[in-house]
């Protein structure tokens, strides 16, 4: 086992590094800092150690040790459950809910990232052990480990990066108007607002966007209610929503134009800056579970 110590340490290090690399504490404020951050780094450490000891265990003819990998898979399914539950629990406290599709997507991403860590450290340890087998000296082993580790890390990162709305659709500022009590954005009816005071606020401070899908697949992806809910949630949390629980009039709703599949959304934000809204919608992730690729006649039209 002495001979394997080097490869184990380097693989664990690379594995934790890859988890940190995938940990984005960005505008979405998820995972939360500092507690969520710490628990995910720690889980990453566990995943990395599992990946790192697999090859040494095999070469020491400890085949039983490999069954621990299946234990690990179970463990990371629990990560997914943990994320889902915690997001589900805070869902009723959100003024504009994330929606179940978005929650599922986040939970899945966290599970996948742990597998990524395990794969990275597994391949790092494999490459180092192969180098050792070919009688390379220790410095060369470490260098090979780092090179392979970073390579796997960047390939998996590219593989796991989600599409953004801007890749499948064009987002443009839109015009809010009223037909009697009906709130309309670019002539698509959004909802019926009875109170004149609320209508006045929409006219004065409302901002709106139109999301124009680039192709039929994008159009049916955007039609998904979970995807729309994610857009609404992003817009409301990033721009700050001017709404309280007793004011359903100001709930942002993304509605679909049934004739061409465009989405429109109006929002009363704390900061009525339409450029910012366009930017936020552009940067919303396309949810994996909402992606659609229709075939046949519909696609040809």
């Amino acid at each position, binding site marked *: 086992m002495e001979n394997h110590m080097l490869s184990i340490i380097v693989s664990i290090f690379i594995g934790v590094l890859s988890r940190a690399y995938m940990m984005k504490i960005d505008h979405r404020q998820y995972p939360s800092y500092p507690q969520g951050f710490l628990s995910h780094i720690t889980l990453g450490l566990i995943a990395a150690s599992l990946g790192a000891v697999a090859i040494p265990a095999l070469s020491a003819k400890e085949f039983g040790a490999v069954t621990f990998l299946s234990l690990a898979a179970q463990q990371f399914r629990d990560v997914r459950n943990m994320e889902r539950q915690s997001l589900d629990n805070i869902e009723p406290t959100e003024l504009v809910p994330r929606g179940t599709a978005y929650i599922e997507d986040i939970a899945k991403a966290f599970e996948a990232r742990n597998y990524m860590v395990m794969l990275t450290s597994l391949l790092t340890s494999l490459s180092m052990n192969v180098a050792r087998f070919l009688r390379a000296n220790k410095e060369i082993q470490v260098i090979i480990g780092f090179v392979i580790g970073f390579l796997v890390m960047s390939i998996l990162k590219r593989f796991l990066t989600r599409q953004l709305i801007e890749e499948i659709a064009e987002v443009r500022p839109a015009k809010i108007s009223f037909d009697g*009590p009906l709130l309309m954005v670019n002539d698509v009816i959004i909802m019926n607002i*009875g109170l004149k005071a609320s209508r006045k606020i929409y006219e004065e401070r409302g901002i709106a966007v139109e999301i124009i899908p680039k192709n039929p697949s994008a159009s049916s992806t955007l039609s998904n209610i979970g995807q729309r809910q994610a857009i609404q949630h992003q817009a409301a949390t990033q721009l700050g929503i001017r709404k309280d629980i007793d004011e359903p*009039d100001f709930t942002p709703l993304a509605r679909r134009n049934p004739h061409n599949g465009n989405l429109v959304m109006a929002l009363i934000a704390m900061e009525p800056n339409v450029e910012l809204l366009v930017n936020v919608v552009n940067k919303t992730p396309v949810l994996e579970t909402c992606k659609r690729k229709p075939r046949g006649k519909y696609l040809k039209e």
Partner: protein
Amino acid sequence: MDLGIKENIIALVSLNRNITSASVPIFFVDNEEKQEETALLIAKITMGMVHDLRNGVYAIVKH
């Protein structure tokens, strides 16, 4: 878990006295200002939303 009545008309606020209903309470008012005010007050109490039915009737709906 959030249990409660949803997607339901809670009350009507009407300028038109000929409106009748067997299940929904109707609040009769005399002018448009009063109608706005009553509708707003009921909406705030019930966390509902006010919709204009364009026939002199406001419906308060819980979404």
